[in-house]
């Protein structure tokens, strides 16, 4: 009798559903997973080590490149850490702008997740619908920071600049006629806040559209209900955070449990799941998009009524205004020192965390009083999620591995760092 061996299959690193560069070694019994062994490190860029050789301001853009689908949330955690070490106060308007962009980022992230998830389960159209909405939010990113993804907009002490008074318009081009141009610019006539407000009014109907295609779809339910179940106790033990934890029925959200920025003053709910399967994780994230939309609307409302400074006036931390530099020697010296030597941060160690779209994104920073951090450690939410891959996938089939991997909302920028 020949010996029957299990089938070992390499899932990735070049695989349409590997979400980047995951190499998953699957041990298969027929189509059933016996063991799933995730191999990471193919996108390792030594962000933590690089931070030790750069000034505090120079490290900031690296944060965008960690979880490259929730850029500004990463910056937020980093800025909070530096601010805590410095003991600098952030203006209220900056707090609200950060809240606004954190939530825009959450919607951006969840839209990409929903699209990719639906695509992995085989529903192609949702992917393109999600990208249609992402386009508007990307334009908001671009309007405020000049970059559509890697914004580098937050600064220790506030944000780089105030919101633009005019939303950038589409320009005439040989590839679109005047009527189409007018259509595209229709909701961009006012300020950026007008554009965002218009988006918050449209967005709930878009989410309804996605839900029509998926939520009650029999095939969708067959593919997701009861797949990759994690109970509440086990989810806490495994170090789950964010929607992964909330889908298991634990109402843990840093925005509520240890509010930062302006979250304490805003009205929103924390959606919680019941069973902790793929379907619940889908429902939680969709509900979160609706909640984020409400928070965005509240922030827009507040920002309309309350103008003010958006970055601290402590010139040891943030650069003085440009025009002042032309006349004041002191301002010029501040500027020079800040962009050459950088800010010096008092010795100490801090851990700050924000509720990033994927879960708790934390920065642990030790300063020895120099202009560079002595050590920085990044807590990426995706890492413990991916570590649970084996436990979640065991006994399921190959197609379920794709669904489970997708619900984790894996981005290798943050896992490999």
């Amino acid at each position, binding site marked *: 009798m020949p010996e029957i061996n299990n*089938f070992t*299959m390499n899932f990735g690193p070049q*695989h*349409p*559903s590997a979400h980047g560069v995951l190499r998953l070694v699957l041990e298969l019994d027929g*189509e059933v997973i016996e063991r799933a062994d995730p191999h990471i490190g193919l996108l390792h860029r030594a962000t933590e080590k690089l931070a030790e050789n750069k000034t505090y301001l120079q490290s900031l853009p690296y944060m965008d490149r960690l979880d490259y689908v929730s850029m500004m949330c990463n910056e937020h955690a980093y800025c909070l850490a530096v601010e805590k070490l410095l003991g600098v106060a952030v203006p209220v308007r900056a707090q609200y702008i950060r809240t606004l962009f954190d939530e825009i980022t959450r919607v951006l992230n969840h839209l990409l997740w929903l699209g990719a998830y*639906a*695509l*992995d*389960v*085989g*529903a*192609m*159209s949702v992917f*393109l*619908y999600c990208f*249609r909405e992402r386009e508007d939010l990307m334009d908001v990113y671009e309007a405020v920071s000049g970059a559509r993804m890697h914004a580098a907009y937050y600064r220790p002490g506030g944000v780089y600049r105030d919101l633009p008074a005019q939303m950038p318009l589409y320009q005439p081009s040989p590839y679109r006629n005047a009527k189409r141009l007018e259509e595209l610019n229709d909701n961009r006539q006012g300020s950026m806040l007008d554009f965002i407000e218009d988006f918050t009014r449209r967005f709930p109907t878009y989410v309804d559209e996605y839900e029509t*295609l*998926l939520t009650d*779809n029999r*095939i*969708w339910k*067959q*593919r997701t209900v009861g797949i990759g179940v994690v109970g509440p106790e086990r989810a806490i033990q495994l170090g789950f955070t964010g929607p992964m934890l909330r889908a298991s029925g634990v109402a843990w959200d840093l925005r509520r449990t240890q509010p930062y920025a302006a979250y304490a003053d805003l009205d929103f709910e924390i959606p919680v799941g019941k069973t902790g399967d793929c379907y619940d994780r889908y429902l939680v994230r969709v509900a979160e998009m609706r909640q984020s939309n409400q928070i965005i609307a509240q922030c827009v409302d507040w920002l309309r009524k309350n103008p003010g400074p958006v970055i601290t006036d402590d010139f040891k931390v943030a650069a003085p205004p440009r025009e002042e530099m032309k006349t004041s020697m002191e301002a010029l010296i501040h500027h020079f020192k800040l962009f050459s030597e950088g800010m010096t941060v008092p010795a100490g160690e801090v851990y700050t965390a924000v509720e990033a779209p994927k879960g708790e994104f934390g920065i642990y920073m030790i300063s020895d009083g120099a202009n560079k951090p002595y050590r920085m450690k990044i807590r990426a939410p995706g890492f413990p999620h991916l570590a649970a891959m084996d436990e979640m996938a065991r006994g399921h*089939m*190959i*197609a*379920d*591995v*794709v669904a489970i991997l997708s619900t984790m909302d894996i981005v290798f920028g943050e896992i490999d760092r």
Partner: protein
Amino acid sequence: MHDFQNMAWWAILWSLIKIVIVVVPLLLGVAYLTLAERKVIGYMQVRLGPNRVGFKGSLQPIADAIKLMFKEVIIPTNANRFLFLAAPVLAFVPALLVWAAIPFGPGVAISNMNAGLLYVLAIAGLGVYGIIVAGWASNSKYAFLGAMRAAAQLVAYEIAMGFALVGVLMLAQTLNLAKIVEAQAGGGFWSWYWLPLFPFFLVYFISGVAETNRAPFDVAEGESEIVAGFHVEYSGMAFALFFLAEYANMIFVSLLTTVLFLGGWYAPINTPLLTWIPGIVWLLLKTAFLLYVFLWIRATFPRYRYDQIMRLGWKVFIPVTIAWIVIIGVALETPLRAILR
């Protein structure tokens, strides 16, 4: 003797002419079905689809064909060379052979054979060998999984399909496809077989989607799971043959559904205005509509999991068809017989 020889030559020549008349439009149809698919799904997904080659993208299929023809067929090092190259042919040939029995109008067919239904069922079942052989010969784990899935899936759905055809057979009392269509003549769309055989109509069409490995039953390809399944190692013309076979089968399944359940070339309502339109137009219109449904399904639904497809085939379709065969059988012994026939 001389006359006889002449007649034999003429018969062969005439057959060849008929084959060309069917196959050339078929291949053109396949080419433009790919364009239609990309356009239709494109508009469903708020994008444009191909619009650069030719007028509004009308030459895109030609460009694709030229590209595929000039690409190298890469044979993996450890593949079985003979089987690897034979597999696309095995998939493509049955996809063309089935067209021999398809009637395009009263008495218009390459071969108006009496056992047409059996012939079609037999030849269509052969197509799966191409897929299995391709998966095996590629010597790739992804391709192998795809082939296994295809084999299991096609067996399950072939049975359901066969039972659905038995229903048609019971009502029409003939295996000749042209006569099956003629048996549906009479009133209008209410006298076609889709009404008395509604469960069979649904089962047959859904099985047809599954047989052609189209979404949501495309687990043999399963792009997000096993990359491209059985044809993951194929390139160039070898890949193109699989592609052609898949689309030719789509057209075939739609056309056969039209012939068996939607009254073939008959107009939906028996008024002079509609019956004046040639039958072939009706046949092609109905086929085009079913093809559109194929694309519509693809843009709407997520993919089934492999075991769920099996469950649907064995535990839903086969019992439903068997039960309906019994119901039809009993009904034919009652006064309902007059209405059904």
